[in-house]
């Protein structure tokens, strides 16, 4: 397997058929995913049909698009018409959306072939994919370790080489953190840059759909395909997708890079060392790297754990057993709703619904939700101030490398601390990327994070490309599929 963009080029030029590409990847999935469990649904027939259609169009002289024939995995909280979409929850038992998410339509419009739906923490709530109702996904680099979450399935699928590209969603770090733990590229766009229509909502003012890839260029290419205004999403920016691929090689000469201590201190030593190394790489490439401090970032996590559950508690009210999904019978409709939700939701989801309901309830709104919205303003202002002296910021993506399965499930607070470096970008609505940048002493991947102001995706990708260039060559993971081929 070569990179996704190279693959698409081959398909478009007729050097290899889409059918062959898709078959190869389906075979790799069938063989390797038993151990990884990245996928909840594999679309053997659907993908083959799509591939055949792509090949027909190429034979007819048409251009199916920039991702022609490329197999893509889609996180199972994105709606795919006629294909079961579970959000890794029992409460959506058997539900098939009657419509496609806008990003899925755009994927298909670019010629990509959706080969399956990937595992996640239930309703995207979690940092390890252990909150899935259908069992966890394993980190391809170590089967006893978590892939991160909530987009663990998508990250693992790309890390194991089962697909070159995947879509995830990021509300508090759910793309970037698993990308870091699995050694792949994962990026969260500016809020509003990518349509949320068809993304099953977790926290509406924080959620964004974003790309996973093995290379920065691939992630940028996928970003370009899915980004841009959507009239079906009122929070979608009135602008087309920015051109991120064509500026990838512009380097970082003259760029000002800030290194906030809050994104470096307190992380595991191996992780901290890699961040320092990344800073040196950028400096050698012509950037000015300056240490700085943004104290308000420390309030990001507490604010996030009030805002996100609050919005989630409302977004998940609709799962009541009336119109679709699971229904547990009851004597009256309220009893039915209570029993359905008790049986259908996992512990983490219940916990966050409770937390969010409490934060919004009468008497507590001002102190909790209201105050958290104000803290959000403070964080945005703090970033704005920092960006007066820096073009981008550099830091860790997550404090540790992949932790063992089961290590944090009984300690919610410990789990939430995985998000400390990622949530500020969600609160501010800014773009950020995690780039693989080496490994720890146990060979577990480490990612470093690049942050930029709103709408500066091209800059984010550009800096990431420089880091990627200097990063150690990727090592095949223990659970790699036959289609894994490095970078």
């Amino acid at each position, binding site marked *: 397997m070569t990179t996704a963009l190279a693959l698409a080029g081959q398909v478009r030029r007729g050097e290899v058929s889409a059918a062959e590409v898709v078959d190869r990847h389906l075979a790799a999935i069938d063989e390797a995913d038993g151990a990884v469990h990245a996928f909840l649904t594999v679309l053997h027939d659907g993908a083959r049909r799509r591939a055949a259609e792509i090949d027909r169009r190429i034979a007819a002289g048409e251009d199916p698009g920039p991702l022609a024939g490329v197999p893509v995995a889609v996180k199972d909280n994105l709606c795919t018409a006629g294909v079961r979409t579970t959000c890794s929850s029992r409460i959506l038992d058997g539900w098939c959306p009657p419509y496609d998410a806008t990003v899925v339509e755009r994927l298909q419009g670019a010629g990509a072939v959706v080969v399956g739906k990937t595992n996640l923490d239930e309703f995207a709530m979690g940092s390890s994919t252990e909150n899935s109702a259908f069992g966890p996904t394993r980190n391809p680099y170590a089967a006893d370790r978590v892939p991160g979450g909530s987009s663990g399935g998508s990250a693992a699928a790309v890390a194991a080489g089962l697909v070159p590209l995947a879509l995830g969603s990021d509300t508090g770090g759910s793309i970037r953190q698993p990308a870091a733990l699995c050694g792949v590229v994962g990026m969260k766009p500016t809020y509003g840059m990518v349509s949320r229509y068809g993304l099953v909502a977790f926290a509406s003012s924080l959620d964004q759909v974003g790309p996973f890839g093995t290379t920065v260029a691939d992630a940028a290419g996928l970003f370009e395909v899915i980004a841009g205004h959507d009239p079906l999403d009122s929070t979608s920016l009135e602008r087309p997708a920015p051109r991120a691929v064509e500026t990838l090689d512009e380097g970082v000469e003259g760029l000002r890079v800030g290194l906030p201590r809050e994104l470096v201190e307190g992380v595991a030593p191996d992780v901290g060392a890699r961040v320092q190394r990344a800073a040196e790489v950028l400096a050698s490439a012509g950037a000015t790297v300056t240490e700085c401090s943004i104290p308000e970032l420390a309030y990001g996590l507490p604010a996030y754990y009030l805002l996100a559950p609050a919005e989630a*508690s409302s977004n998940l009210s609709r799962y009541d057993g009336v119109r679709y999904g699971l229904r547990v019978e009851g004597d009256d409709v*309220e009893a039915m709703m209570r029993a359905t939700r008790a049986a259908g939701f996992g512990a983490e989801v219940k916990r966050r619904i409770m937390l969010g309901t409490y934060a919004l309830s009468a008497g507590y709104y001002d102190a909790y939700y209201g105050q958290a919205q104000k803290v959000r*303003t403070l964080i945005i202002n703090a970033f704005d101030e920092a960006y007066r002296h820096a073009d981008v910021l550099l830091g860790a993506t997550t404090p540790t490398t992949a932790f063992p399965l089961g290590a944090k499930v009984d300690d919610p607070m410990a789990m939430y601390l995985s998000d400390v470096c990622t949530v500020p970008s969600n609160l501010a609505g800014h773009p950020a990327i995690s780039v693989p940048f080496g490994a720890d002493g146990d060979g577990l991947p480490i990612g470093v994070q690049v942050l930029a102001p709103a709408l500066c995706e091209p800059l984010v990708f550009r800096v990431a490309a420089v880091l990627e260039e200097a990063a150690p060559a990727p090592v095949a993971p223990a659970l790699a599929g036959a289609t894994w081929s490095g970078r």
Partner: protein
Amino acid sequence: MTGEKLTRDDAAYVARLARIDLTDEELDLYAGQLAVVLDHAAQVAALDTTGVGPTAHPLPLKNVLRPDEPRPCLDRDVVLGQAPAVEDGRFLVPRILGEPE
């Protein structure tokens, strides 16, 4: 706000609001876990937010509107086909005991 213990009764009230049946053991477990998280989250109270407005949206959009024109809707059979219970082209639910408001 910090140090405020979330009691089992508080948890039970919240569970009722959220329409989730929880056992007594679950109530105790969640009450304890939520208390820890709320303690952490209560750090926001420490910040001085005088004169600071809330951010509802990270980006200042306004007046996003659509024209009053019909668009295709869903096939009823497709929708009802996924419903847990149906009668006469409608969604069937067990008896409703109370009024909505």
